[in-house]
């Protein structure tokens, strides 16, 4: 088909086509330059660095797979990995459940609902640095607000960030204040669920819970899937909160993977080792994303994607 058309068309047409292609590339050229310089080149360079020792001063020195074997024998590598996995697998499900619950409430047709939408979303625009510093203050074991609130219910004061077992849960709680974006995405998904479906199920005698489980959840399953994938990718890269609030402590309880990578790269200037760490993280994220996509075939329902 394509060859037949090419043969039938006069040469002049080809030239116009050639110009059309060029025009297209001219328009996307800023992205091509940016992609080559700030995506493709860094990725390849980082793959190279992962097999070297490099401190920025002398030239990179090839060391084979030594960075990776060293990592495998490093106790802190497993600590950082474990902390990050703990944080991700506890916080992401809680974030999704909370965001979905809030979105369900905000999807009700009630008077003043727009005011609630704004209020629920607002914590998400607060700069992370500001909110982390604020939470450090609120988590203070001696005079913090959280302990005061526990006191209302007759509960004892907690150490929060100062306590190795409480520190990670404290980070999970902190992360729950920033679910506004997920909430809005859920809300958009809920608003796209046809009311006719809900009504039909209602006529068939389905109660609120059954309608939620058998109509709403399947209909918004692509949105749940999207939030899950993005949530996991984001949580694996938790950095700023730990860097500011605890700097990995107490007793490495909040030493998250990217914080550890940051220390190697930008405090000790071990660029080779840090690059190797980066590639392991990329691999882990890709594996989880792949698992997510594979599992999604069993539970994500795309409307109009065949029977």
């Amino acid at each position: 088909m394509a060859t037949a058309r090419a043969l039938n068309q006069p040469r002049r047409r080809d030239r116009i086509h050639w110009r059309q292609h060029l025009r297209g590339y001219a328009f996307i050229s800023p992205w091509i330059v940016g992609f080559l310089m700030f995506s493709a080149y860094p990725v390849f360079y980082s793959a190279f660095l992962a097999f070297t020792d490099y401190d920025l001063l002398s030239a990179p020195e090839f060391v084979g797979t030594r960075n990776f074997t060293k990592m495998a024998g490093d106790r802190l590598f497993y600590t950082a990995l474990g902390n990050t996995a703990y944080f991700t697998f506890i916080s992401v499900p809680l974030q999704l459940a909370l965001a979905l619950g809030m979105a369900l409430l905000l999807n009700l047709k009630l008077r003043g609902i727009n005011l609630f939408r704004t209020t629920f979303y607002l914590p998400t625009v607060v700069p992370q640095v500001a909110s982390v510093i604020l939470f450090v203050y609120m988590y203070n074991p001696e005079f913090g607000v959280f302990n005061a609130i526990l006191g209302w219910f007759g509960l004892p004061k907690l150490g929060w960030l100062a306590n190795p077992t409480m520190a990670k849960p404290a980070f999970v709680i902190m992360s729950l204040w920033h679910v506004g974006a997920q909430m809005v995405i859920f809300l958009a998904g809920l608003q796209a669920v046809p009311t006719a479906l809900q009504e039909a199920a209602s006529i068939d005698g389905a109660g609120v819970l059954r309608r939620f489980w058998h109509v709403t959840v399947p209909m918004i399953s692509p949105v749940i899937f999207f939030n899950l994938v993005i949530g996991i990718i984001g949580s694996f890269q938790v950095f700023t909160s730990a860097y500011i609030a605890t700097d990995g402590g107490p007793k490495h309880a909040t030493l998250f993977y990217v914080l550890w990578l940051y220390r190697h790269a930008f405090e000790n200037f071990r660029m080779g080792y840090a690059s190797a760490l980066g590639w392991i993280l990329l691999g882990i994220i890709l594996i989880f994303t792949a698992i997510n996509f594979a599992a999604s075939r069993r539970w994500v329902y795309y409307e109009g994607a065949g029977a």
Partner: protein
Amino acid sequence: MTVRASSELMTARVRTSTAYRLRGGLAMILTYAVLILIAAISSLPMFWMISTSLKPYGREFVFPPEWIPVPVVWSNYIDVWGESSIHLYTINSFLVAGLATFGTILSCSIVAFGFARLQFFGRDLLFGVLVATLMLPGIVVLVPTFILFHHLNWIDTPMPLIVPWWFGGGAFGGAFYVFLMRQFMLQLPLELDEAALVDGASHLRIYWQIILPLAKPALAATGIFSFIHHWNDFLHPLIFLHAETWRTLALGLRFFMFSETYGNVGRWNLMMAAAVVMLLPVLILFFSAQRYFIRGIALTGLTGR
């Protein structure tokens, strides 16, 4: 609005039995109670930030904490503004966020126009590559880009925070904006371009004079997201800026926390005042352009950070 609502309420009252109405009323009260509770928990940190920023020195560590500051000390703001370098950080933040945002809007809209409105070889494949860069964790490219900027002598200048955004943002997340604007431009009728071409307009002119003005909602969403992202960004300034000359507010705030005059002696009231100063532009932007903001998130699933 009120008239319609109350008339609906009236008809509802006539139709339903007393028992049903009671249950409906109770459900309504419970729903509002939950809504108000969540709203209160959501606003607690921000309320606490503002309340603390207005407290007199020493009242920040009282336990149990005082919710309303007595007396209200507005001069905390004057102290923070005058005694620290926060004015310098604010100017830096505005410069960096402003220039990066301007570059993002310009470069990403040109690229989006190419992907949305033009036909060329390999277009869909390249767009797939662009979308794939969204999945790339930023941390992987951070080390090599640091080395690149180090060799370009860009460390301790605002260049690393601005220049990539004039080229679609690279792996720092600019693909989101291209994606958002392309989605929007795809919805505009192609006849617009065809009619302009017949009239002898160039494609650059079509982009600039027809598509760009029509894509204003997408540009606005991009501008707001981008500005807030750069304003709030902590990781990149931390890595690329070490000297104070170009320090941004996000970095400055963290330095307050560990500085002799504020952090070490726990001047939480002044730290919170500085945090409010940093929050204010974001809040103003959010409230003035809320509708673009919410729609933009729904369009792209952008996390806003």
